[in-house]
């Protein structure tokens, strides 16, 4: 990982000093372990702070929206798919974007790591090729990296960037081997009452902070439906109706656009698994309309398109 990080820094420094881009958007080391955060390097000196670890969980495509000037983005598979999405949705031009492509080894879920050490504070995580060395006061343990991947990384099908102007490191395998169809839409086998109970159980800790929305590269409306006051589409209480409305509608707004990058789940301070909702839509879009978001520049989003023979059994 460190070798890749070094190459990212070199590429960023070169791009900034040649004046090819105004900003390089990448990841920097977080102030606490396992919390790498988005970083904006405007000068070659600032590019020194860029890094690449197992905890680059934010989706950097989000930060390209409404940003003037030319930008370079460090992009693994999912980020590049969201960049393609944004180009297809006319948010910026391909010429204004320079993609520093990286093969994603799959990112690690900090909650899964923390769960190994209940009640203890992890002070340092050292990257090794296949392992992570987790350190804290009075303990030190080497863990196998691939056992702690985020659940969306396990079922990823596109680890290499779909577009790139420059590839850092080698391209790797496209997937991890997990099959999305085995885990998508986990409530489909339940009866309606159980489904609702599962939904409530999933959302019970939601504090309506909207971190999932803020981390999502699809959410770039000037005024979000939950923030609008006239009319107020969604109540602001902790009541199950309001919480469910928010999550159902947030998921629905991502229909045909969600790349399953997992930024929402990684951003959630409460550990809510909102992919249980978005994976259902992702699956429907794939099965009904044969579409995977963000794979091709110029593709029309499935919700902005129709075919005469679209399924319509539900219309009476």
């Amino acid at each position, binding site marked *: 990982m460190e070798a890749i990080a070094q190459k990212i820094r070199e590429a960023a420094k070169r791009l900034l000093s040649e004046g090819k881009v105004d900003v390089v958007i990448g990841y920097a080391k977080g102030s606490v372990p396992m919390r790498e955060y988005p970083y904006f390097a405007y000068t070659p000196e600032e590019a020194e702070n860029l890094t690449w670890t197992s905890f680059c969980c934010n989706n950097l495509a989000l930060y390209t929206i409404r940003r003037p000037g030319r930008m370079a983005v460090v992009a693994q598979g999912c980020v590049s798919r969201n960049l393609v999405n944004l180009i297809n949705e006319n948010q910026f031009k391909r010429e204004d974007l320079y993609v520093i492509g990286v093969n994603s080894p799959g990112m690690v879920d900090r909650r899964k790591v923390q769960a190994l050490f209940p009640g203890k504070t992890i002070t340092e995580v050292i990257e090794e090729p296949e392992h992570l060395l987790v350190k804290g006061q009075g303990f030190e343990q080497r863990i196998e990296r691939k056992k702690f991947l985020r659940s969306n990384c396990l079922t990823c099908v596109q680890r290499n960037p779909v577009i790139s102007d420059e590839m850092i490191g080698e391209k790797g395998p496209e997937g991890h081997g997990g099959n999305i169809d085995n885990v998508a839409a986990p*409530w489909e086998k339940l009866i309606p009452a159980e489904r609702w*109970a599962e939904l409530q159980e999933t959302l019970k800790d939601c504090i309506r902070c909207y971190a999932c929305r803020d981390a999502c590269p699809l959410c770039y409306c000037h005024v979000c439906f939950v923030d609008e006051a006239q009319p107020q589409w969604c109540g602001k209480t902790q*009541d199950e109706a309001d919480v469910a409305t928010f999550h159902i509608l947030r998921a*629905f707004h991502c229909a045909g656009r969600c790349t399953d990058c997992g930024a929402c789940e990684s951003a959630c301070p409460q550990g809510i698994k909102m992919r249980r909702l978005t994976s259902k839509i992702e699956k429907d879009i794939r099965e009904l309309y044969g579409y995977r978001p963000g794979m091709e520049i110029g593709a029309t989003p499935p*919700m902005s*398109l129709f075919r005469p023979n*679209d399924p319509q059994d539900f*219309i009476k």
Partner: protein
Amino acid sequence: MFARRRFAVLKNLLEYVGIEPGRLHFSWISSAEAEKFQKTVAAVTEAVKALGPAQHMIKDIRKVA
């Protein structure tokens, strides 16, 4: 026609989270199809009555206020 796609996904999603099948209906009725409108409304009313009062997505203002 765009709406057909959106409603297909929305209906699947709502039923996926536990809204009972039969509570949500879609129909395509022209302003000239009075009879179809009447029949559809009667069928929807009957289906929803059979399910009884809604149990989900009801905000109890006394609980949250």
